[in-house]
């Protein structure tokens, strides 16, 4: 009997199929989280990712199938790119001009976080450079978690807007500072000082220039396609992809380039094209995939390598952000209470911080491993706890939609 029409064993799955299976799991788990646990949808996505990742290990252990980690990683990066662009769109840098105390608040919360986390890491005998990198990255709040929860609750108001703004700003500081630190590391190992500023300058100026170019292209084309939602989403995905791919090819920072690209779109948008542009659905899909994928590929083996410093980081970071943002709230035009709630909104960290570490590892693997050891557990804790504190903050400030917010 000729059975050659049947597929050969083992089956050759296209690697992208793993993403599709995960997406299916995530959609169901997200709904489960909202309907039965009454927690943010993203926790369901994370759970789906974790299950999927565990299943992957099992298959690998049984030597049945290998998870296509590279495909998953790549998909996650692209999803992150979409998220960063969307967060950028929501951030009004004009606001900082009109209310400079906000910038003060932002600089203070990041500076305090950096200083104290650095000191605590030193206390745990972590090498100065690694400690500084950990401190730099822990300044950042997760744009993905903030975007996901504010979207889901359809929240509006000062706590929402300020959380988004401060998140974008501290993410930018984190990228810039970690880049400078990396450059410093190279100077230390090679003992030459002349290129200390050259690399960060290339990276920052280059990323911003690319972002500005991307923003112009986006506005040009989106202005031309008008109000067709599908076309708007297509333009967005194309620009994000072009900026992302160019940043990678030019060895720039995709993180900075995409965040800045979104913000530039908003700044350059004199014709107010954004008011009629809606890419919300696409960014919702990107968020779901991002959380599921990040949980699926997280390296569980290093999770508890440095649990004590990780816990200390979580606590010190929380205290610094709460103290700084609450204290500056009256200056920045809101009540102490709303300042405190905004600070709670700044708690989340996510795999975006780990992607920053990933950029570090590419340039300096040893340093990357040290920072990762502390950050992985902090991120795992703070994306769950942070999502919950943000939800609590938005509800306590009455900014979440009153009824059926979870069903939205």
């Amino acid at each position: 009997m000729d059975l050659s029409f049947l597929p050969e064993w083992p089956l050759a799955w296209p690697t992208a199929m793993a993403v599709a299976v995960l997406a299916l799991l995530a959609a169901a788990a997200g709904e489960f989280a909202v309907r039965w646990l009454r927690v943010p949808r993203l926790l369901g996505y994370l759970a789906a990712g974790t299950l999927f990742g565990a299943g992957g290990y099992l298959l690998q252990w049984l030597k049945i199938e290998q998870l296509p980690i590279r495909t998953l990683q790549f998909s996650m990066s692209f999803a992150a790119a979409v998220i960063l662009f969307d967060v950028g769109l929501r951030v009004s840098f004009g606001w900082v001009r009109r209310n400079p105390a906000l910038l003060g608040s932002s600089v203070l919360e990041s500076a305090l976080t950096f200083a104290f986390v650095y000191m605590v890491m030193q206390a745990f005998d972590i090498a100065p450079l690694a400690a500084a990198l950990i401190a730099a990255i822990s300044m950042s709040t997760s744009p993905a978690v903030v975007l996901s929860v504010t979207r889901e609750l359809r929240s509006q108001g000062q706590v929402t807007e300020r959380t988004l703004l401060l998140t974008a700003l501290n993410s930018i500081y984190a990228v810039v500072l970690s880049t400078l630190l990396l450059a410093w590391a190279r100077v230390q190992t090679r003992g030459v000082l002349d290129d200390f500023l050259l690399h960060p300058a290339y990276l920052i100026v280059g990323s911003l220039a690319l972002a500005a170019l991307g923003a112009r292209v986006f506005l040009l084309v989106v202005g031309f396609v008008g109000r067709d939602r599908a076309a708007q989403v297509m333009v967005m995905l194309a620009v994000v992809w072009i900026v992302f791919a160019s940043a990678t090819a030019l060895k720039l920072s995709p993180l900075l380039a995409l965040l800045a690209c979104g913000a530039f779109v908003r700044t350059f948008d004199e014709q107010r094209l954004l008011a009629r542009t809606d890419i919300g659905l696409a960014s919702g899909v990107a968020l779901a995939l991002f959380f599921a994928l990040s949980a699926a590929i997280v390296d569980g083996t290093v999770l508890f390598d440095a649990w004590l410093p990780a816990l200390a980081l979580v606590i010190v970071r929380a205290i610094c952000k709460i103290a700084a943002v609450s204290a500056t709230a009256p200056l920045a035009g809101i009540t102490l209470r709303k300042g405190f709630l905004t600070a709670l909104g700044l708690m989340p960290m996510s795999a975006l911080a780990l992607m920053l570490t990933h950029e570090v590892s590419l340039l300096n693997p040893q340093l990357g491993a040290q920072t990762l050891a502390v950050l992985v557990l902090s991120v795992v804790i703070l994306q769950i706890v942070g999502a919950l504190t943000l939800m609590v903050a938005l509800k306590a400030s009455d900014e979440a939609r009153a009824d059926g917010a979870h069903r939205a």
Partner: protein
Amino acid sequence: MNADTGLVFNRSALLTLGVELELQLIDRRTGDLTRGASDLIALVSKKSHPGEIKPEITESMLEICTSVHRSFGPVVAELQQLRDILVAGADRLDIEVAGGGAHPFQRWYDRQIYDRPRFRHVAGLYGYLAKQFTVFGQHVHVGCENGTQALRLLHQLSSYIPQFIALAAASPYFQGVDTSYDCSRLNSVYAFPLSGRAPFLTDWPAFERFFAKLKALGVVESMKDFYWDIRPKPEFGTIEVRVCDTPLTVERAAVLAAYIQSICRMLLEHPEPLDSEDIYLTYNYNRFQACRFGLEGQVIDGKTGASRALHEEVIATLDACRPFARELESGDALDELERWVRTNGNDARWQRETFQRRHSMAELLLESADRWRGSPAQASTEPYATLAG
């Protein structure tokens, strides 16, 4: 005065003027209504300012009220001052403030009721009507010396109501569609059971008896439960004209107030007879014409049966009350009013033109917010008369 009903009419200086404007708070990015009333009020309350800045029924609206004035000049100055304080505060919170009688595309089910006992009570009683009631009006208070004078002025003023509606109309778009009305806001008000016109009672004791009966029946608790087009406001000692949409600029709001004040003065000096309720025969018809067609609405004179367009009606009234306006130092306001009627028409017309130019309600809203700030408007150049012809 009857103390039981709580309807003591406090005496006011005759023809003093106060203006209340309900305003919308707009998201700078999307043009949608946004929540921010309590934050903005908390912020501006730190600055000393004349008048009042108060919360309204939802977090997306607030109200500014002037103090009591005698003429147009101080009213416009105070409104500008209040506007500047609001705009400065809103800038620090990254939101926009705008006039207009309704938000063109807000979804009423997204509105959050402002946290105050009365607002919660209203929301509980009227259900979705309360949230759909996110419409924005201008209320003009005119001082009266006693209740009977107030009621008599109220009924005489009723024949001018269509003019006020047409001049102030600024709510052509509602819930995302062109309603075809210049003023769609009053249709929302009409859904409430105690809306429309006040009963034809021309002396205060009779009104007190009417109120006491309704109160005993449990229909109303206070004067606040009446949503009439004009209602007496005994605690202020005023009558309150409530049919105007909030205009897009404070200047326009002040001009409308001065026009109402001038007509009141004219009516006090040359009273019109109030011998029969027949003065209301054409009231609802004329009111509808004003809401639907604005200044091009055709109104019918109940006495003569003559019909004419509201813009002609306004010009005729302007001519008649100009001497009284001059006595009130409001002559400039009436000149300005005549200029609009002859050139640009009402705000509803500007809103439709802006929408046609920008093809986007969000952009219409953001341009309205620009106008509220006092930036030069993209004024229509086409004279109104050619459209009317």
